[in-house]
């Protein structure tokens, strides 16, 4: 193999694939990045057997070939090279990669590409297409609600359902549920329901940078995998086996009290309450008060702990329905308010033991596009 690439491109490619490298694996080759020439470009791949990321970068290829380079060493090296062309040539017999850049000359011990787990090629011609910017927003609005506890693997995933030109992402960790719907860029006849690891989606949101591009999604039959492909990046993830809880029945259909308030003011109040609540039980008390016919109502958000003290914030709000005092985990509130983009947000609930529902409010938001359910906390006394 003999190739020349731009340092900038190589560094960028390595930063994309390095997230799938597993440095502590029992399989030493998984700590390496596969480099292979591929139809006039250089292909970089890394996998931890659950998640695989491939990235193609432009290269001048003099001789085809492939090898695997130690990810850590190579990334550190490339990041310190000067911003010019990097020439690489492989001695196949000794599996030594010579890297030259300006005055720098390096010989790097590699592992034969034969040992790298095969990354099967996927036909993406009949895949579903969605705009990168939209998919990124969808992912950010649900992944945080997925569980991080390995005891219930199914909840560490995000349920993706595709039906009639619409795609829905849903994640739940047992205490909250986030559901986001969107239209597909291309309509597809078949419907899909699969649970994708939340981590894989987070990585996808991170590496898919160009918002105007389209991302293509394929689930090859019988492989238990999902493939996301943009122009020069491909992400392959194992799907999670199992049945995702039927979330539709969890979503409350009725409410008694509805408060509409400023998202940013609510978020700020939650951030302040969290400073005090995090020492104790993470409880934020939400006191929804409809003051009178002609005055605006208010929502009081408070957090307290025995050690640090207490904090209250009053946010003006439009209230429908009776007054209510309800408690939520303040972190849950903060995390969902962080991803709501509209200036106003609605909080709907019925009693202090019924679930609370948050949804964005605004003309540009389609009904039911995003909704988030949080189960309340019960106060001691």
């Amino acid at each position: 193999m003999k190739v020349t690439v731009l340092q900038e491109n190589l560094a960028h490619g390595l930063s994309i694939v390095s997230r799938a490298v597993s440095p502590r694996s029992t399989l030493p080759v998984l700590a390496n990045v596969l480099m292979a020439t591929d139809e006039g470009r250089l292909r970089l791949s890394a996998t931890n057997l659950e998640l695989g990321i491939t990235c193609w970068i432009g290269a001048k290829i003099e001789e085809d070939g492939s090898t695997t380079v130690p990810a850590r060493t190579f990334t550190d090296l490339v990041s310190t090279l000067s911003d010019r062309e990097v020439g690489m040539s492989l001695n196949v017999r000794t599996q030594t990669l010579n890297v030259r850049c300006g005055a720098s000359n390096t010989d790097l011990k590699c592992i034969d590409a034969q040992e790298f787990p095969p990354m099967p090629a996927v036909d993406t011609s009949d895949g579903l297409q969605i705009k990168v910017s939209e998919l990124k927003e969808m992912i950010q609005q649900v992944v945080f609600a997925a569980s991080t506890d390995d005891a219930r693997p199914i909840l560490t995933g995000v349920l993706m359902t595709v039906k009639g030109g619409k795609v829905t992402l849903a994640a739940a960790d047992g205490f909250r549920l986030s559901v986001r719907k969107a239209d597909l860029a291309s309509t597809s006849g078949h419907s899909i329901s699969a649970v994708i690891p939340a981590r894989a989606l987070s990585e996808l949101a991170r590496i898919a940078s160009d918002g105007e591009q389209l991302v293509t999604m394929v689930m090859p039959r019988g492989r238990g995998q999902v493939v996301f492909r943009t122009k020069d990046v491909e992400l392959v993830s194992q799907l999670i086996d199992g049945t995702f809880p039927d979330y539709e029945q969890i979503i409350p259909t009725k409410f008694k009290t509805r408060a509409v308030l400023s998202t940013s003011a609510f978020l700020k109040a939650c951030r302040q309450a969290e400073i005090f609540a995090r020492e104790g039980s993470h409880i934020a008390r939400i006191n929804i008060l409809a003051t009178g016919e002609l005055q605006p109502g208010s929502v009081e958000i408070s957090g307290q702990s025995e050690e640090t003290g207490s904090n209250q914030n009053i946010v003006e709000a439009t209230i429908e329905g009776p007054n209510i005092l309800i408690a939520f985990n303040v972190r849950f509130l903060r995390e969902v308010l962080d991803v709501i983009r509209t200036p106003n947000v609605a909080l709907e609930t019925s009693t202090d033991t019924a679930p609370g529902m948050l949804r964005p409010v605004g003309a540009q938001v389609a009904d039911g596009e995003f909704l988030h359910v949080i189960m309340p906390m019960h106060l001691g006394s």
Partner: protein
Amino acid sequence: MPIRILSPEIASQIAAGEVVERPASVVKELLENSLDAEATFVSIKIEGAGQRLIEVTDNGSGISETELPIAVERHATSKLSTSQDLFHITTLGFRGEALASIGSVARLTITSRPLDADVGTRLKVDAGHSSPIEPVGAPVGTQVRVEDLFYNVPARLKFLKHETTERRLIDNLVTRYALAYPQVRFHLFQENKPALQTSGNGDRREILAALFGVEQARQMLDVLAQDDWMHVTGFISPTSLTRSHRRDITFFVNGRPVQDAALAAALLKGYHTLLMVGRYPIAVLFLQMPPELVDVNVHPAKAEVRFREPERIFTGLQGAIRRALLAYTPVPGLQAQLRWAPENPPAPTSRQIDPAWNLDQVSARKGWQVEMQPELDRQPTDELPGGAAHALAGQPSFPDTRVPILRLVGQVANAYLVAEGPDGLYLIDQHAAHERVLFERFMSQLPEVLPSQSLLQPATVDLPPANARLLTDQLPFLARLGFQVETFGPHTFLVRAVPNLLAGSDPAAALRVLVEDFEEDETPLQAEREARLVARVCKRAAVKAGHALSPDEQRALLSDLEACQSPRTCPHGRPTMIHLSVDLLERQFGRRGAR
């Protein structure tokens, strides 16, 4: 005092003491009679945990009018006639003592009708005095009612355990017989509520579910082995399912439940090296062998037997267990582990490389201070005035056990913190330390109801009957802890909310771990039980070994530990820290002469 022959009443009460020691033993004797009478349906009714009423009804062969008065005499039996028969016992009973013994300590009513008789007969015995028999209408079979057990032996009454315990013993006993006789239909009613109902269709796994819960019953492995004179069937747990005690190991020899240390040893031998130290399997095993090879006439309650050729039986059993285990034990799957795992586990001998570092020797030299509360410190709480309050705090606290201000040095092996104090080096077990911190925090908040987090969907938990009963008893306390649990069927529960502290973990597993292996007999005090439950919650919620902590988290844990009342042990009594004094370090480095 002159020596006298005891009156017949006293003599029979003494004899009864050997056979009938608690309600469960009455149930056992009556049940065995029913089974010996070849009944296909046995219904048992218990009231007042067996003290008020034990009623066993069967559809067996019945007792004829002429035999009935003899049946309640001592040493009266139909099961044996010559002394030779004693060595070929094929029935469960043979001593002829059961009915007489029960009759002498309770009010006994026997109603029976054999198949060939037109009417049944009834006989009443009250504290050993039988009244004349009377004819009554009765279905074929025998009904024995035992009322007011031990009413004339107050000493015995006093030694009965709590009602729930007695009920649980009866549950366990009947369930085990139901397992041994799957073709017999059993109905057990405790306080007018069905506790066990089997179909009698011969399916043992169904009954196993009643004993251990559906989940665990499903995991149990089948054992089936036969050689020319012994036949072993039954169920054993896979190596992943274990208990901290041996009580769930049950053996039946020729249909008779026996306790035999040697059989249990053979079972454990079969599991050798597959189980952790201190863990025991669950097993229900049925051994069939020719009657002349076992001697059952060893123990009044027949709980023990002697084997004619013990070695052959033990090797046979051990082999059968091992084969079943190896056939079913899967190769552990390769899984991505976040945990720090050394490539070569440290060899246990490594400590002996340098004798100066041999921990055992050094600690004998007084230099090392392994800061462990001696066992003596745990005072028997119920003897103290205000014992309950003491028990609530877990272990008694001593003012001088507080740790000094510590400076964090770092984390070792993702499991231990290293810290420096004014008097030397401290090694702290992060899991045990966190457990202690959580425990004290919980206990200080407990007078109030703790906050809890509701679940999106309630989780259903299916528990074995014994655990279910315990859980039902503790529901009010669990509600204070933050568990909102509702009963949802006899042994099924709905978890609606969990303590905030456990919000990260599987709610069903959290609840199950709370009551699993719980010993209600060990501590009669409710306060002590509550402390135990809290300790379990803390154990579950505490950060595990193998979890990397950020420096801030490490520092927070240290300062929390400094604030604890008794920081040196975890709520289960294991040490949280080891202290290496400056003095010891200096000696070890040869800066100061060895003493």
